[in-house]
């Protein structure tokens, strides 16, 4: 499964299910983490590559939400997605504050590994909150894997926010990001749509016959929508080294990703439901 600066390639499986996800949860987490971390420390890349990293980070978050919510949280699935992005905001702010200080080179080949401090900080906060939530003496939720789940969500949230900052602002310097992404309120749409990309897949496919590959398709589709919205904002401001082409190419990439996965998901779900009829009467099963 390779993703590059262009159309997304797919591998045809014999049953025609399209994208299956051979990596199971831990492997998917590791792959996504590595890809996202490598992309985030190079803020000079074109927006399409950063968008690919964003898709992976949100996929990781959605998978983590799915794993944690399977055991019943009591308050519902959306709450843990909102928690992830709440941590993500704080982590991203810490990340861009450090990013200014540990920065090598400028322009296209700028490397800013300092932003990873924010990611690690939120991993620690997520781990502590998971430990406190699960331990018998404190809150005592008794969900297996909650500590690891909250730690992964803290990291995924911070990475997603950082990647979106670098898409819209073009660099991860504190002042530039505040001016271009936070003060004009774009951070609100990043917060809300990333939160949706993390919890909507599992919430929308909740039920006894839920299947992981089908659920994760929704996450990629929402990430495509997010890229379209960010592309519109980017094309309007257009001050990075790549110019307006950056924003327009992001819109096209996002639209393509969205269209492909949306059609695939709806067709798969209609095929895998009990039946899909044009219209009909209802029955009662005693």
């Amino acid at each position: 499964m390779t993703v590059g600066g262009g159309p997304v390639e797919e591998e045809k499986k014999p049953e025609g299910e399209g994208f299956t996800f051979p990596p199971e949860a831990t492997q998917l987490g590791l792959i996504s983490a590595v890809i996202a971390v490598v992309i985030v420390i190079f803020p000079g890349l074109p927006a399409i590559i950063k968008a690919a990293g964003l898709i992976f980070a949100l996929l990781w978050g959605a998978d983590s939400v799915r794993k944690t919510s399977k055991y019943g949280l009591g308050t519902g699935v959306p709450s843990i997605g909102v928690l992830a992005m709440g941590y993500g905001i704080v982590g991203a702010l810490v990340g861009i504050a450090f990013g200014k200080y540990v920065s090598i080179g400028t322009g296209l080949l700028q490397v800013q590994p300092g932003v990873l401090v924010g990611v690690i900080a939120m991993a620690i906060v997520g781990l502590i909150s998971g430990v406190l939530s699960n331990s018998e003496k404190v809150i005592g939720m008794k969900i297996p894997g909650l500590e690891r789940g909250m730690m992964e969500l803290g990291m995924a949230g911070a990475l997603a926010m950082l990647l979106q900052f670098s898409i819209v602002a073009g660099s991860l310097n504190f002042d530039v990001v505040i001016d271009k992404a936070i003060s004009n309120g774009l951070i609100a749409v990043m917060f809300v749509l990333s939160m949706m990309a993390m919890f909507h897949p599992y919430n929308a496919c909740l039920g006894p016959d839920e299947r992981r590959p089908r659920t994760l398709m929704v996450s990629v589709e929402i990430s495509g929508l997010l890229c379209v919205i960010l592309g519109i904002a980017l094309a309007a401001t257009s001050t990075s080294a790549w110019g307006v082409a950056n924003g327009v190419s992001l819109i096209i990439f996002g639209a393509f990703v969205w269209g492909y996965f949306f059609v695939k998901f709806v067709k798969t779900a209609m095929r895998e439901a009990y039946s899909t009829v044009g219209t009909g009467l209802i029955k009662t099963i005693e």
Partner: protein
Amino acid sequence: MEPILLIVCVLAGGVLASLGVHLLPVGGAPAAMGTATGVATGTVMLMLGAAMCGLFTASSVAAFSDNILLVSLSGGVGSWLMMGVTMLMANLLYVFGTGIVPVSGRVDVDPITGESQKEYRTPQCDGHGVPNVSYISGMMGALLGGFGGAIMYFGLLNYANFEPTMAGVAATGIFVSNAIIAAYNIGGTIEGFQDPKFKRLPKALLTCGVISLLCGVLVWVVANLGGLGGTM
């Protein structure tokens, strides 16, 4: 002096958020069907709605006043009004739209007005509507929650020198994390301070205190490293 004040503001905001969540009468999905007492929505959504209203009022007031007590109280009163009107209208819907008498399901006698609850309850239901004790508990919870959100916003605005939008977003992020962890503590639904689940409050206060302290330290690091100016 200044980093201490910032961390104290964030800590107070987080702890008050969890206290507010425990005081709000949340019935969840069963309350929308008239099966449980409380407001018919989820804990986090209601607390966030009240806190957002308070944050809006606090940010308007912070534009022309810089007294920490006045700004925070304005935020608290903003939330309190929102909860008051919402719960009163919900009661109007219960009484006239569905013909239900608001009673509590967890206590037999209302602790504040002394009205008896048992004979008005529908059998096999855990109470319905928003009785007086839940109403007052909800107003208190919204007041404290709004106060907490506003004091966090004020701290971020004036002691960390964030800009208004950035302070609002950061305050929302930290507030919502605390509210969610407190919601895990009560398991999703609670009737107010008369509910036996209210006794679990200290554990949530401890957890939210720890998380807010960590977030406060991180915010101070951001303010210092970002060079946002260090003078009060």
